[in-house]
């Protein structure tokens, strides 16, 4: 897309993502799951629900709670992390859960909870985006009705150059900016957006454009992963197909959603 003299440590173009591999249905005891490799990042996501929210006093009679838990294994980072969840993990859990909630038809499941657990076992920048990207695939795998998948991707800056999907080395640049984002691809609406670092308004616009582009690429990978799973299942299990079918319909047909949910054209 853009040309630049900046050479990325891993030789990627500035708008090129690292290699991403997504495998749905990797766990047997969760209702849905997905494994993701995103560069060095490795995450497993398990989904449970909709199931009764407990204790009762946390139940919401108008919608399902979305409980997202993001955790990093002690050995997943260069310096050993404490086994106790840190404040960073708690903040990421909160904003990621809110991002997913925007995609789920939560209003269909009164008093329920949808629990999403995302664990990182290896990491190299961009873990919250990797986990979130896997999470909506796991939700689809669990047959939970969604308006859309939620692809995520970070944009960064290193040595004056805006780049998509920065790696750790780029994240540590002197002038680094880190802007993780996630969208609902159909209308390109932003459901997660955070930013660290200094940007002018003009730079922000360019960065946002790069990020949107990255998210759309991630979206294709998500859809392909679900489709492959769908095809492999087709030969084995009639019943499971129907649930996924419904999912795929929901993701591909546009006009229907406004009628089904509270979706509003942005």
């Amino acid at each position, binding site marked *: 897309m853009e040309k630049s003299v900046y050479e990325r440590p891993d030789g990627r173009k500035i708008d090129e993502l690292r290699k991403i591999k997504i495998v749905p249905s990797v766990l047997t005891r969760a209702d849905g799951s997905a494994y993701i490799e995103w560069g060095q990042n490795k995450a497993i996501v398990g989904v449970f629900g909709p199931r009764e929210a407990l204790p009762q006093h946390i139940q919401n009679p108008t919608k399902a709670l979305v409980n997202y838990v993001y955790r990093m294994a002690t050995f997943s980072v260069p310096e050993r992390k404490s086994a106790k969840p840190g404040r960073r993990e708690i*903040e990421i859990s*909160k*904003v990621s859960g809110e991002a997913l909630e*925007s995609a789920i038809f*939560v209003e269909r499941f009164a008093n329920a909870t949808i629990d999403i657990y995302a664990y990182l076992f290896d990491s190299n920048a961009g873990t919250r985006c990797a986990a979130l990207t896997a999470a909506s695939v796991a939700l689809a795998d669990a047959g939970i009705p969604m308006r859309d998948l939620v692809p995520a991707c970070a944009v960064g800056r290193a040595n004056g150059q805006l780049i998509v999907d920065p790696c750790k080395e780029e994240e540590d640049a002197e002038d680094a900016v880190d802007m993780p984002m996630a969208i609902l691809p159909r209308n390109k609406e932003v459901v997660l957006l*955070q930013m660290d*670092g*200094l*940007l002018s308004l003009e730079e922000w616009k360019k960065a946002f454009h790069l990020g949107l582009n990255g998210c759309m690429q991630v979206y294709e990978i998500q859809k392909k992963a679900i489709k492959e799973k769908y095809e492999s299942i087709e030969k084995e299990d009639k019943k499971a197909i129907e649930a996924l079918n419904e999912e795929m319909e929901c993701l591909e047909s546009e006009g229907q959603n406004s009628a089904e949910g509270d979706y509003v054209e*942005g």
Partner: protein
Amino acid sequence: MRDDILFELQGEKAKAYLAKGKRIDGRSLMEYRPISIIPNFSKNADGSCRVKVGETDVIAGIKMEIGAPYPDSPNEGSISVGAEFTPMASPIFETGPPDEYSIELARVVDRCIRESKTLDFKQLLIEEATKAWIVNIDVYVVNDGGNLFDASSLAALGALIVAKIPKIEGDKIVKNEYSGKLELSCMPLLTTFFKIGNTIFADATISEEKAADARISVGSTENRQICAMQKGLAGKFTQQEIERCFEMTFEKADELRSTLKDALAAES
């Protein structure tokens, strides 16, 4: 007391007003409520500031402590921001360990200060690799009238501006004596925008906040640099909506900065 069901009803009303581009209290969409600022609220703090934005009431205080620099930045001090939603601030808060709400609040306030580079962490060094200042900033929410992010950011900045550096003798802090002031290179502040339906507005009251679909906080400096962002709640923003917020952010942050400066000038 106004209980939470009452707030929800008010939320519905707020929604109806906002759909017509109006607000219950007669403010325009981007107008802040009256702000009152009391710098140096606590003498035992090294810096402190109480800020009221409408009914919202927060108190920020700073304590400087001597600690060891992080191994990977041996010539730098650091900051640490905490937030406590006191249980008197709202009928629904509980005492207990910091929950996700207060952690998010603290981390976004921290981000705005840290990423603006207003504090030169190298100037917080006392002795390479062994001693540096840790600037502990703690924000207490005393009354939650909505828009805690902006009020907390304002209080934290106010506390930093008036903060003094304790005098050291040997390894110890000398009580009640100071060797100078913290130097700040700019005045970073958060401004937060809320969305209900297709209406975007600033400085939500608690009823508006409870009815809001989405929230975006933008940290910026007087040099028109964006230094932090945080989107919150389960709603969504289009690119145009976010850009609209950015256009407002510099103007609104400038207003808040001049309110703060006035309060500081009145104090001294």
